[in-house]
């Protein structure tokens, strides 16, 4: 039979053939080959995209990670890194013919330097665990995605995670000062040195948020922040999102940058109430949560201003809290929102668009119109301060037409965000979920230029391929007619007719 490929040239088979090598590197107990067990890793927090990896390895050290990557590189086998698997864009969806490298065994806090306000941690450490390790020193780790109890720092680095407090406190990229990285070629190297001063190109800044496509993080040096002296929370209930939005505009206009400004609409309030009985004011069309933190003297002044602005905007009710228990109770409703809508609907799509804050009112009105047109409900939870929306598109997955309509509506919402000069993703990342929208936000030249960085780090395209960019860029291939025989022909395994 002409054109038969020799056994072992199929990538999936090549990956499986590495099992022995991987066991030598990580120990047999830390290599998974059983098909049923492999399937447990088939998706991350985005359950709509699944792929079973050919092999799963769980290394314990940077050297083991490097060994695993070198083995993959030598065998031309793609690999994907996974932290806690809580990502919402499918960044850790495995390659079906590749190796999944799971970092959850690497979860030590290696060093804390409270005077320098730095901690060195392994990638599997959860976000909250970093804060808890820092707490005895009066410090905490500022970027706090809602999944912080579970999500890993390594994952945060990949996605440049933000959380509710990032308008004031910044993102992962503003709080990570060095990374030990295993490059796609399997070398261990440092990006940055922990000082926050870049020597040469800021590869550290370029790497953070690259969604696992430029290498695997094995140590993270984070910046720790002094615990604020005072924290105050204000909850204001309004009859409509528009009213709440006016309060937000006036707060920003008063020169205040709150630590967090969150808004929920009636549908999401209803869900949260059913789930955690947060006891938000009954009948509210919108609830605004404003958190202020900082030196006590500053927070007092800001609090008075925020309360008066909220009242002026027509609040039905205003509550304030400054002790941790009361504050947690108010936050509980907001933090439960995503999970809570599961009570309203068998299935939902959570979006992550961003629009300029001043366009929020118009965009929410547009989403409402789109929702009505499609006959699909949308619950809105959003970071009102930075324009990051999380529309929860609710549908019944037992009805195929509804699932499709929900997808179409989600797409229309993202199109709206782009039309208003925003972004397709504020914190969840592009992953597999939104790569098809990248050409709507960026030109071909933009995407090509970004991929120059990809080519510099990963010319062989083995590191989390197929994520972020819809069309991979060939690295260093000369376009035009082939000058040499095709490798498979040269190997005598096929003929060209």
């Amino acid at each position, binding site marked *: 039979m002409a054109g038969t490929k020799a056994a072992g040239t199929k990538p999936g088979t090549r990956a499986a053939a590495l099992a022995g090598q991987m066991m030598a590197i990580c120990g047999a107990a830390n290599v998974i080959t059983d098909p049923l067990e492999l399937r447990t890793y088939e998706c991350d927090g985005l359950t709509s995209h699944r792929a079973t990896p050919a092999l799963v390895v769980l290394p314990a050290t940077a050297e083991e990670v490097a060994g695993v990557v070198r083995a993959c590189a030598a065998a031309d086998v793609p690999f994907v890194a996974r932290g806690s698997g809580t990502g919402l864009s499918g960044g850790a969806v495995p390659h079906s013919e590749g190796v999944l490298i799971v970092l959850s065994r690497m979860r030590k806090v290696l060093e804390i330097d*409270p*005077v*320098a*306000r730095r901690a060195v941690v392994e990638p599997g450490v959860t976000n909250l665990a970093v804060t808890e390790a820092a707490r005895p020193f009066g410090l905490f780790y500022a970027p706090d995605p809602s999944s912080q109890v579970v999500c890993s720092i390594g994952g945060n680095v990949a996605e*440049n995670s933000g959380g509710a407090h990032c*308008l004031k406190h910044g*993102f992962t*990229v*503003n709080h990570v000062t060095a990374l030990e990285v295993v490059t796609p070629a399997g070398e261990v*190297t440092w*990006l940055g*040195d*922990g*000082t*926050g*001063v*870049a*020597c*040469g*190109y*800021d*590869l550290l*800044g*370029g790497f*953070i*948020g690259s969604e696992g496509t430029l290498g695997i993080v094995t140590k993270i040096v984070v910046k720790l922040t*002094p615990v604020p*002296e005072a924290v105050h929370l204000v909850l204001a209930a309004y009859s409509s999102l528009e009213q709440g939005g006016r309060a937000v505009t006036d707060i920003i*206009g008063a*020169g205040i*940058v709150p630590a967090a400004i969150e808004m929920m609409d009636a549908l999401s309030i209803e869900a949260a109430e059913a789930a955690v009985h947060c006891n938000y004011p009954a009948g509210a069309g919108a609830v605004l949560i404003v958190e202020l933190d*900082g*030196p006590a*003297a*500053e927070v007092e*002044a*800001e609090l008075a201003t925020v309360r008066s602005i909220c009242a002026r905007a027509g609040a039905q009710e205003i509550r304030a809290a400054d002790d941790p228990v009361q504050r947690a109770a108010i936050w509980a409703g907001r933090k439960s929102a995503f999970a809570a809508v599961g009570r309203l609907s068998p299935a939902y799509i959570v979006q992550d668009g961003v629009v300029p*804050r*001043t366009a929020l009112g118009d965009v929410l009105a547009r989403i409402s119109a789109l929702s009505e047109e499609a006959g699909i409900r949308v619950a809105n939870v959003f*970071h009102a301060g*930075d*324009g990051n929306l999380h529309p929860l598109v609710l549908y019944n997955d037992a009805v195929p037409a509804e699932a499709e309509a929900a997808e179409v509506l989600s797409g229309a919402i993202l199109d709206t965000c782009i039309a208003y*000069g925003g*972004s*397709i993703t*504020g*914190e*969840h990342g592009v992953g597999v979920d939104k790569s098809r929208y990248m050409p709507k*936000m*960026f*030109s071909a*030249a*933009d*995407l*090509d230029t*970004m991929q120059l*960085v990809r080519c*510099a*780090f990963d010319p062989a395209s083995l590191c989390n391929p197929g994520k*972020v960019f819809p069309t991979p860029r060939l690295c260093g291939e000369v376009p035009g007619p082939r000058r040499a025989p095709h490798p498979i022909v040269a190997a005598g395994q096929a003929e060209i007719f």
Partner: protein
Amino acid sequence: MTATDLTVAGKALAGACPRVRAGTDADAVGGLVPAFVASPADTAEASALLRAAAGHDLAIVPRGSGSRLDWGPPPARCDLVVDMLRMDAVTEHAAGDLVARVQAGARMGAVAAVLASAGQEIALDVPAGATAGGVVASGLAGPRRLRYGSPRDLLIGITIVRADGTVAKSGGKVVKNVAGYDLGKLFAGSAGTLGLITEVTFRLHPLPAARRFVTAEFADPAAGCGAVAAAANSPLVPSAVELTRPVPGGPIRVGVLLEGSADGVAARAERMAELLRPGGPGAGEIAGSPPPWWPGLPDGGGGTLIRVSFWVSALGRVLEAVDAAAGETGLSPAAHGSAGAGVLYMGFPPEADGVASFVGALRRTLGRERGSVVVLTAPAPVRDALAACGGMAGRVPSLGLMRAVKDQFDPGHRLAPGRFPEVI
């Protein structure tokens, strides 16, 4: 290049951009007089210009205000200086969104005036004459880096022109955005070696209503270093914690900047003064304006400027290393900078002897600490002498990756070649 080559190249450039002229001595970069100086009016012209330059293998150096053109090693070639000053508009100021989009040649003083009219600012300590693109390309930061970071931390979008003329952008005009790779971070501090920056978008902060400076002097270095750390780590949230030590082994002066509301700042200043009390009589002094020694952006003054970066817990050891190097070489530079943010600078006049040895001694003593000793600018004889102890940049981690990135963006090595950090 032959005279004919030059004529042909000149014609091509003029076809791309109406404002092209011959370079003069005043345009020299590192002693190299460029054949051409071009002033594009917008990104489209800049793109055509670079495409034309690519067609004639011209080496390019971008120029804003030119204030830091002599930093780093001089370029190996310089055929075309791209003068960005015609691109000086504030393209968009969305006050309600805390965002400003600015052309690369805009002067930061003019930008600040526009933003201030809405009670906002780009929270960087930069001279009024600096250009937005230059600020990003140089990556320099002043005292308020402690609270706000350096230019890369405030950059949310960028438009660049590649060596082949391709226009590309990343980021956008919303503060929260993780779509795609962040080219802005990569271009910050790249000194013109990866591409031409034509537009930048910054996130803004409200202009503080009031500010106070709290200063104290310490004879005992340990007390001084302790005060720096205590201030920088305080929940009073200082915007800057600066140090100056005019003489090695001599007294240390610490200055803390607090910004915020009038009442809030007054109350915090009292408490900061208490915090800085050097354990004896004389608390910190509070003032509404900076002390005379308060720095702006680091400046070379025609001589050598060294930057030491370190973890704040190592400040004492850094000052001891400076003392030791001073003893070895007989030089006694003042040490000054954002010690609370882990940065100190030392300057030497052009005629100083033994500067390279000083750098070598520092690098040896601080070899085990995390951080770096980098020579930001130096006269030619000092640069030559530095070759024996690690050059201007010293040990650069991931140099191979940096070279790979450079090769992707500028395969022909025509963008400020040899410039940065001396080995790219």
